[in-house]
């Protein structure tokens, strides 16, 4: 479904991503793990078309992509951002936020779709005409998820979708994402610094450090602690100490 070949990203002197390759199958959820500055979010933004300074190959659904993305691409691929406070327009109501993608793509039954999207992410109808600042953090992230899904994409890019949320809300959002993924058969890439979150949602994951993928392993190997690379081992150890506290 998603094929990344030798992706290289530079911003001036900053070599953010250094020739990485990976493949994500249809219906799979792939994790990208690393500390800040490892380049994991940059990879996601390059796939989404938000960054144009890349070289290498990005293919979605068998089609190689260029720097500029057409409208059809954004119907297939959608993204949920880390900060629900920043990713919703502060002057637009939830209704307006959700109708925007529908208007762009010329979707007909906008009203019904908005109501369905709200229901799908378990937001009350009363939230429809609220502004983002009138909602809690968890509700905002639900709006962001509803916006991503309202035009029926097949691929969802998740950039730290729960790291700005309280742990109790994180659990709710992670459950919601798992449900939606199952119901819609979504292909996902999840970027996170939290190994436990990645292990919870992803079947396979890549560990990134300094712009490179240092190791790709599956969930079972991760849980069993069968990592080879020292950086992965460090991350796992850290995660364990926090959990056992």
């Amino acid at each position, binding site marked *: 479904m998603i094929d990344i070949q030798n992706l290289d990203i530079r911003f001036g002197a900053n070599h953010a991503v250094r020739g990485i390759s990976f493949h994500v199958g249809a219906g799979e959820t792939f994790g990208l793990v690393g*500390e800040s500055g490892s380049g994991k979010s940059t990879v996601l933004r390059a796939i989404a078309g938000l960054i144009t300074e890349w070289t290498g190959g990005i293919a979605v659904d068998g089609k190689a992509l260029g720097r500029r993305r057409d409208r059809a691409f954004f119907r297939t691929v959608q993204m949920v951002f880390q900060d629900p406070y920043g990713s919703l327009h502060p002057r637009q109501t939830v209704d307006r936020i959700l109708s925007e993608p529908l208007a762009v793509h010329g979707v007909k039954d906008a009203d019904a779709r908005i109501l369905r999207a709200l229901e799908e992410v378990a937001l009350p109808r009363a939230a429809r005409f609220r502004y983002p600042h009138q909602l809690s953090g968890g509700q905002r992230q639900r709006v962001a998820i509803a916006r991503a899904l309202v035009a029926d994409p097949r691929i969802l890019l998740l950039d730290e979708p729960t790291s700005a949320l*309280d742990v109790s*809300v994180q*659990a709710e959002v992670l*459950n919601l994402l798992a449900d939606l993924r199952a119901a819609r058969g979504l292909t996902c890439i999840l970027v996170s*610094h*939290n190994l436990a979150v990645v*292990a*919870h949602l992803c079947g396979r994951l890549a560990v990134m450090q300094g712009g490179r993928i240092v190791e790709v392993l599956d969930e079972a190997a991760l849980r069993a602690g069968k990592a080879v690379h020292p950086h992965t081992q460090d991350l796992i150890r850290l995660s364990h100490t926090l959990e056992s506290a």
Partner: protein
Amino acid sequence: MSDPSLRGEPLVAVRNLHVAFPSATGVTQAVRGVSFSIGREKLGIVGESGSGKSVTGRALMRLLPASAQVRADALRFGTTDILAASEREMRSLRGGRIGLVLQDPKYSLNPVMTAGSQIAEALRAHARMGKREARDAALNLLESVKIRDPRRVHDAYPHELSGGMGQRVMIAMMLAPNPELLIADEPTSALDASVQSEILSLIEEQVDQRGMALMLISHDLPLVSRFCDRVAVMYAGQVMEELPAADLHKATHGYTRGLLECLPSLTEKRDRLPTLRRDPAWLAPHA
């Protein structure tokens, strides 16, 4: 600096603290009857956003907006009654006897001053000191917060420092006047996990070495319990439960248990995460 007559007495005494924010649409009760005391120890205050944990910390330094209505049966730091203290007394408390470390050094450090000059300024604000003397003291402080190359960092501007490094500078600045209490409000939530524990270990070490008290405010229950002696869990402006950090796994309150259980785990595979069921009884005012 510490008053010998205070030994045995708690450094901070808070009894029945209430904080309310009136607004055009009604009054928001942010803190509703919180009581605790801190001696020479490390107290963790844990809660989710909106639980009133930060407001409690700020009430202690009287750093709340002017519109806030604060009342308490007692709100004392040492012998100072914080509710009655003059603005002048408060200034000598803030950044003098009480240090505050905030979440993101990117915003709490002055972007147009070098790290060293900010530390020197903090030093000179509370003690008479020459320029050269202040510089040496600043370098010493940078060394004590485990910065490998203090000279480079001394002359660096905040944007040239990484998040962890910035937070170390922030801590050095707060340690400068030798405070008796350090309030750390989410000091590591903007940092990577590996840096997080380094910073908290540093805070722990400095607090122990200098015999300070620590009030660590955070949303991260497991993390806090690793570095504190006692943990108070807050919800909707009240303390739900206060217990020794070592006994966290024995917590009885539904909210504390819920917070611990809803975390995804690396060791154990679960299809669905248990979500927190908020019991309306938790909202009822405590006696």
